[in-house]
């Protein structure tokens, strides 16, 4: 089922500015994990903000669960379906303590007290934040802060979760932490996940990769297929992940490895087999 549809979307901030999005056509299926990649300034973060009506197209349309974002009356409903986690962990936590912040969205839509307490606790548990309920945000690590933001997002029982460069300011541990929880939401709860990132190692984990450059989509397909396309990556000013570089270099040197879905484990297995054959 199509959950997000973008048809011929164009956008600029002010009439005098140049276009930041050009003719975007993108369909996202329910339960999919789509990563949108591109260098800084490619328009990927702007695109994300169309998914919950923070921006609306100047031309074309965006449908979320069939609701057009161009109709202001749909905004409240759309924002309940699409939760968003942003880049800077410090700038999105509103509440003075973890539990207050997780409750913020629920308070906004008037959830009754008893239900609210239960949903807050559930979300906190799901994000592994037990014991930190009363902690103040500035005492948490970056990864923990982003998990608080995630907990706040999922407490609303959204259909779609958009992560707008949510891991780019974290250290490797924090990054792993956040991605692990997001992966779990996608797998176990069938949540549609959209991650905006320039980290291709993160994009490899997704079902589908969308490559952006200068406000346009220049690639859309399986990560394994796009990541072997050197020209495309070069155009997008992205770096091929190490494992892809390695396979390519080995193939050039006459090692017979098929280029397909590659993981470190698979490559090592293939190499071991090859050695025995020789």
């Amino acid at each position, binding site marked *: 089922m199509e959950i997000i549809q973008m048809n011929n979307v164009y956008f600029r901030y002010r009439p005098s500015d140049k276009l930041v999005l050009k003719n975007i056509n993108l369909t996202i299926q329910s339960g999919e994990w789509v990563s949108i990649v591109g260098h800084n300034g490619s328009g990927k973060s702007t695109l994300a*903000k169309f998914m*919950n009506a*923070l921006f609306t197209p100047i031309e074309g349309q965006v449908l979320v669960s069939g609701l057009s974002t161009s109709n202001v009356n749909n905004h*409240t409903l759309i*924002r*309940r379906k699409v*939760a*968003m986690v*942003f880049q*800077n962990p*410090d*700038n*999105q*936590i*509103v*509440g*003075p*303590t973890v*539990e*207050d912040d997780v*409750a*913020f*969205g*629920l*308070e*906004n*839509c*008037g*959830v*009754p*007290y008893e239900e*609210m*307490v239960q949903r*807050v606790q559930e979300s906190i548990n799901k994000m592994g934040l037990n014991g930190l309920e009363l902690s*103040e*945000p*500035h005492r948490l690590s970056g990864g923990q802060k982003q998990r608080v933001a995630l907990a*706040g*997002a999922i407490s*609303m029982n959204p259909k779609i979760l958009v992560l707008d460069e949510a891991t780019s300011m974290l250290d490797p541990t924090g990054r792993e932490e956040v991605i692990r929880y997001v992966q779990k939401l996608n797998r176990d709860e069938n949540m549609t996940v959209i991650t905006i990132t320039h980290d291709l190692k993160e994009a490899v984990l997704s079902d589908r990769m969308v490559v952006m450059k200068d406000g346009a989509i220049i690639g859309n397909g399986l990560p394994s297929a796009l990541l072997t396309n050197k020209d495309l990556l070069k155009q997008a000013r992205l770096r091929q992940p190490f494992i892809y570089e390695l396979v390519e270099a080995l193939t050039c040197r006459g090692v017979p490895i098929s280029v397909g879905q590659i993981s470190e484990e698979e490559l090592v297995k293939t190499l071991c087999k090859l050695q025995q054959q020789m």
Partner: protein
Amino acid sequence: MLDHVIIGQYVPGKSFVHRMDPRAKLICLMLFVVFLFISRHPFVLIGGLILTTTAFYYAKIPLRFYIKGMRFIVIIILFTFILHLFLTREGPAIFSTPIFTIYLGGVTQGGFMATRLLVLFIMASLLTLTTTPVALTDGLETLMKPLKKLGVPTHELAFMMSIALRFIPTLLDETAKIIKAQRARGANFTQGSLWNRLKAVIPIFIPLFVQSFKRAEDLATAMEARGYEGGEGRTKFRLLTWLKKDTYAVIVFALYALIVLIVKIGGGN
């Protein structure tokens, strides 16, 4: 440098006063402040002293925490005392020089005013020492509710306070970081003329403003994304629970107020 700024001087604990409803604490403090200053009768001050001592005992907060925040207040108290000492011309003279004379009335008046300020300060500290800033905000918001009918944006005010509380530590960290970065670039905030020192502050304030605006913008976007549409139709996650002991505490302070009133009317002082 900024490490030592402790915002709100809350000292965690589980004492009777800690566990009181913030609304009850606020009401008690308000009653206390108003009625302590309404009359100059010594009984009123003695009553105030008794109440303060009792509250101090039940709060179980070591004296040093009061003293820590007191330096500035002590100056005010001393100033008040000295002012009264020299300016009051009542009772017999007890000390005399060609320039000034000190009267007994000055000593008692000064002592009276100083004690009154001290008692007031201790009582107010008791509130901030035993109540988290968040709880205080909650208490204020509910107490201010009646003002909403008069058009006062009580939800917005309380929400602003709560966001300020959330961001003060973040901004302090940020300030410390900017100061360090500019010092690494040779900035000197402690030497030179006043004008130069003022100028030295610009490289701190501008980045801080720029960053704060960026934060505010991000925060507004995040709040919008999380469905914030103002106070209408919002429910509250934080519930304040009013217990019997809160009622008792308020009754005690109300009794004090009543006694003060009787003294005031009866004594006409």
